């Protein structure tokens, strides 16, 4: 089990090919940073607990020698208790500040310029429809130009869905009768998986799409097709 845990830790630290930790946009990079940061802080906590845990069990386990000992009564220890109240608070503040900052950053959805590309995303059981400003519509693939700001306008025709392209950023729920927005700027060309992340019925599993990030020229060409 320990070996497995070690392997897993190495896997995460290397960031290798886990999609969430392989960001292709600023939003996803910020989120990956938060994940690494919180993971680091939390590993420190786990380490401290593990050391105390193993140490105490090893040192104070029942043996032939202490079998009939009656340990001394001890109510508590104020200093120690203050330490393990204050220290976590400090650690948490260290996590809370970047959390607040990044949460505000990724929630900023307004278009910053006239060049911003707007895409209407309509979800229904069990497919996506991506509508571009010139009227072009696709279902299976969302094509985006690289290094350009995109604002997605998401709404649902029936139940709640959730739009998720792990490499481009966290998810945003797609609600019926209401528009949610999401701003992303993909910064690398490639094809990325997209999924519906909110359970939406029988074929929820199959409600997938691909996001193709291509260069400007290719995008314009594709748009005119």
């Amino acid at each position: 089990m320990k070996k497995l845990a070690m392997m897993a830790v190495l896997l995460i630290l290397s960031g290798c090919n886990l999609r969430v930790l392989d960001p292709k946009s600023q939003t996803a990079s910020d989120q990956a940073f938060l994940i690494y940061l919180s993971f680091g802080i939390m590993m420190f906590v786990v380490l401290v607990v593990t050391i105390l845990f193993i140490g105490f069990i090893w040192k104070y386990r029942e043996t032939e020698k202490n079998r009939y000992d009656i340990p001394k009564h001890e109510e508590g220890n104020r200093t120690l208790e203050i330490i393990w109240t204050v220290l976590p608070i400090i650690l948490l503040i260290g996590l809370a500040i970047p959390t607040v900052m990044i949460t505000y950053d990724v929630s900023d959805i307004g278009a910053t310029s006239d060049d911003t590309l707007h895409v209407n995303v309509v979800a229904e059981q069990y497919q996506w429809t991506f509508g571009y400003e010139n009227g072009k519509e696709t279902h299976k693939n969302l094509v985006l130009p690289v290094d350009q700001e995109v604002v997605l306008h998401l709404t649902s025709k029936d139940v709640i869905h959730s739009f998720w392209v792990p490499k481009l950023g966290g998810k945003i729920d797609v609600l019926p009768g209401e528009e949610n927005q999401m701003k992303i700027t993909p910064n690398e060309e490639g094809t990325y998986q997209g999924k519906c992340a909110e359970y939406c019925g029988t074929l929820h599993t199959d409600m997938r799409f691909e996001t193709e990030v291509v260069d400007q020229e290719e995008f314009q060409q594709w748009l005119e097709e």
Partner: protein
Amino acid sequence: MQFYLFGELIVLPTDVIAAWVSVIIGAPLALYWFTKKRYWPVVWDFATSTNHRKIGMLYIIFALLFFFRAGIDALFIRLQLVTAENEFWVFQGDKYNEVFTTHGTMMIFFVAMPLLIGLMNVAVPLQIGANDLAFPFLNAIGFYLFLTGGMIFFAAFFFNAAPNAGWTAYAPLSTYEFTSGPNNNYYIFGLQVSGLGTIFAAINMIVTILRLRAPGLKLTRMPLFPWASLITSFLILVAFPVLAIALLLLQFDRFYGATFFLGEMGHPVYWQHLFWIFGHPEVYILALPAFGIFSDIISSFSRKNVFGYTSMVIALALIGLLGFMVWAHHMFTVGLGPFANTFFAITTMMIAVPTGIKVFNWLFTMRRGVIRLQTPMLFALGFIPTFVMGGVTGVMLASAAADMQYHDTYFVVAHFHYVIIGSTVLGAFAGLYYWYPKMTGKVLDDKLGKWHFWLFLIGFHLTFFPQHLAGLNGMPRRVYDYTWEDGVFVYNFISTIGAFLMGASMLFVLWNIYKTHRTKEENVGPDPWDGRTLEWSVPSPVPEHPFEKMPVIDRRDALWWAKQEERSLPIEDHPRTSPIAVRTVQPLVLSAALTILSFGFIYGWVWMQILGGAASLGFFLLRAFNDERTEAYRKEEQDDE
């Protein structure tokens, strides 16, 4: 299989047929066995009793039954996900959705809750020196409501109508427009009926703990399990009515076309708010009693008092309080805006502080003690690292922007299994081994217990650790399939192996119980573990009204100090009168009436609704004018004169 019955086409999938076949074969065998062994008087004794130990045991027995059922569902899930592009039996599409919905709902409401309430029933009165719960009749009613709700929910599958909107039943998917069958009606009535029982249990527990403590047992001298039970009961009292309201609104949406969660006036997010205002405290309702159990066990098996008692109690209360202020952290992706998201992120992180205090206090309880590694203690020790891992992923999830990546993925699945299995399930097992002598007079076999522990713990980590990684690699929860390109095969494969290890470990529980009761050994004495709290001063199994000689408590762990000083606890000359036990079939009758009522609503048969409704109402009227304790009161009054 398809056939016509009364001119209607009935379609039965093979898993439902298999279930019916096993019931048709199994039920007569069970009946024969009960008759041959002459168990019916015992069954009748338990079914009509209002004694806290017997009702507690009933809670636990049925919770274990549901545990096996929902566990088999989990194995079906794991078999369907064992490899990419897999088709196991019938578990794709809606069938898969039904299985995970049943697994989740049943594990939370009909396994975790009743296991804990059962243990509270058995142990809390004994730990505080009460002869029974304050309202024994209400206790029986509470149990039967849980059983009725559980059975209604259990039955859904046999009529090929298992709920399929997830245990969270998010609107509008759970409304009539999108899931029109009877399926989610089962969900509503199963939870509504059992939820009422839970509220009754909580009221009972609060009154018992506040009113029936032994003389001298101030709140500040109370062991931590009753403390945890008290705080949990207050959480139930606030949270469960919210669930009841949410279910009622959903029922109106489904049956009568009200539009609370849909349409112009309604909003689907209202459901999420209501559900999580209940749902998050529910997590602590599951965790806090387990914390209490672990505190008692770690202290007993380290032969030391609890380290930092006061901060332990304050931490319990703080966790309970903060638990009501964090519900929207389940909704970071809904689009509530950055202010709400960061607010709930910070309140959520704050919970880590009292939880951390508890963890360190447990560790320091063991320091300088003598740690006996018997089965209950092993479960308590297994809990600490497991729960800490679940706790730290909890803090990671609290980071709102990062949660937008984790949300609704297997990372979350891994997290909540780490916290709920880590605390509640390990806690219930620990409590079961620990208090088994109090329930039955026997100690469960230690060696088999250790087999159970190690297989379960290793299986658990194998199952759920890889799911963190599957989630980070983009695997959403509640999907029945993935592709090879998704790169999550290895994680899922390991997961499935682990799940079967956990399943195998449960066979050791059955074997252990069988082995323990096969030999006709003498019952153990009152104190098999060298315990510290009051329950170890009364015989095992506990007789009715064990504290006829009411002890006087002069300090925390009074029994322990009395044992050290080789004296017995002083006895109160004029003890408070005990709750009055009665023998009654009324809860059974109410149970039947509510079953009729529920099935009437589930299938929309108005005549049955009227029949069940009239019967239930009639029952309440009957109760209002009848009190079988009157006779006992009269006798007491005469004795006083």
